[in-house]
């Protein structure tokens, strides 16, 4: 399997990273080598082995339904790249044709 620069560009789009042409050229062969190496996992793990997502068994955790203080709006908005009218200001979320 050879990962092309085009494949990497496609993955980067899915991951919302706008890579440059130069980065794509460098990354494609690097990622190819990494993926080829990690593909070794298929050598051992057979059908009847259950997958582990977590080292310790996970159980759902509940807490008492009590009121607790949360972060104030001012504190949260202070970290925002842009805020307006006491809200996060974000770029347009719809396409031109919408």
């Amino acid at each position, binding site marked *: 399997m050879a990962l092309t620069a085009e494949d*990497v560009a496609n*993955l*980067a*789009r*899915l*991951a*919302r*990273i*706008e*890579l*440059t042409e130069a*980065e794509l050229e460098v*990354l494609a062969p*690097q*990622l190819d*080598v*990494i*993926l080829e*190496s*990690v*593909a*070794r*996992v*298929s*050598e*051992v*793990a*057979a059908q009847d*082995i*259950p*997958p*582990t*997502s*977590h*080292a*310790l068994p*996970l159980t759902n*955790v509940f*807490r008492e339904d009590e009121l607790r203080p949360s*972060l104030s709006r001012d*504190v*949260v908005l*202070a*970290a*925002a*790249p*842009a805020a307006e009218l006491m809200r*996060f200001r*974000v*770029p*347009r*979320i*719809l*396409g031109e044709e919408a």
Partner: protein
Amino acid sequence: MTLRQPANAEIIRHTAVDLAAKIKSRELSAVEVTQAHLDRIAEVDEEIHAFLYVDAERARASAARVDAKVAAGNEVGPLAGVPLALKDILTYTGAPTTCGSKILEGWLPPYDATVTRRLLDHDLVILGKTNLDEFAMGSSTENSAYGPTRNPWDTDRIPGGSGGGSAAAVAAYQAPLAIGTDTGGSIRQPAAVTGTVGVKPTYGGSSRYGLVALASSLDQPGPCARTVLDAALLHEVIAGHDPCDSTSIDRPVPDVVAAARSADITGMKIGVVSELGGEGYATGVEQRFHEAVELLASLGAEIIEVSCPHFVYALPAYYLILPAECSSNLAKFDAMRYGLRVGDDGIASAEQVMAMTREAGFGAEVKRRIIIGTYALSSGYYEAYYGQAQKVRTLISRDFDKAFSQVDVLVSPSTPITAFKIGEKVNDPLAMYMNDLCTIPSNLAGNASASFPAGLAPEDGLPVGLQVMAPPLADDRLYRVGAALEATLESDWGGPLLDQLADRGAVR
């Protein structure tokens, strides 16, 4: 390393335990102790670059509060007044948390991590935030957006990673204690290559609340120190159940301090993992490792060779599981609620701004791993990659279970090689990943694991670490073995390993 100021030189050479005792008996003030370490940072950190942020004023103020408490005869904790360096991936209100990334440059977190809260509640003095590979992705700190940290043993070399800043700060006597986080070896590998002690508690043993997540099923905060007892005392301060972390273990913390004080390994069964050695391991690493094992045998431990056949698949499994989790965790850096925003010109869409911001804000390794993770999780590849990796994870846990049915702890070298030169592996990601060969199995299985100094490799005079792995919730066994090794080696060496660094003037 030259210790130029005589008064400070004496203070900064003390262990955390000694400093706490002297502060409590008022032989030294906490302010004096803090100032000595701040002076040391000012003296050497331009070269070492362990710190991304030094919080001098607040550190002095917290030290003064400890002195006031002591003067008033109030009860203080066992490490009250002792300075500490905090890895810059745990939040601490009032100080920026960057995670070594441009995407979070200048971000002031609105809350304290539970680990931070516990440190403050126990009267430790936080000196500042330490350097790391961006979002803890790396084994050398070269992936920090703010430049690499240098190894105090040889400043042309890496201090390990991702917690190279914390380990270097401790090794360079800038702080007696530090906090690290370990996802694939980020506490243990830096400890090994800097001649310090680093412990990864059992997964769930210390809280991840306020730790900016890399891979949630693997991340674990833990102590960094120069001595085994200091690490144990710090472990006790930060560990324990936290309702804010859903994977936190609601059980008593193992008595790590008593274990470190006992140092008794008589009759303990110690397993040597046959897969973690041989080809690819430096001669001096193997030599010091085998000497350490012989020494443990001479102290009354029974040595048994143990095979963990699936450990050789830990590295590939890890480099699928970690990227998968990190690609999802780092999706939150979307340029909307915090951190960097690039290209918001009133025309670009939210999606375009997000893509431009992540392009500008993330470094090369972060991009590599996010893309690998995206690939591994994409339909058509999920089963062959991520699914298979999760099965390998099961096989590794089974190897551990089987091994721990025969022995009390397992040992191996902490890392196959000693500290390498800065720049040597930056263009070869796979070679860089090999540094985590020995440490990764414990992250995948979630058991407790530590690195202790085992001496210097004869060929290059650089530190070698002994890794000790214990079953989940048997963290105390790590300290028992570490303390036994430390006591015997130090009596052979005529003092701590780091004394050899302090006395020879490595930092010019």
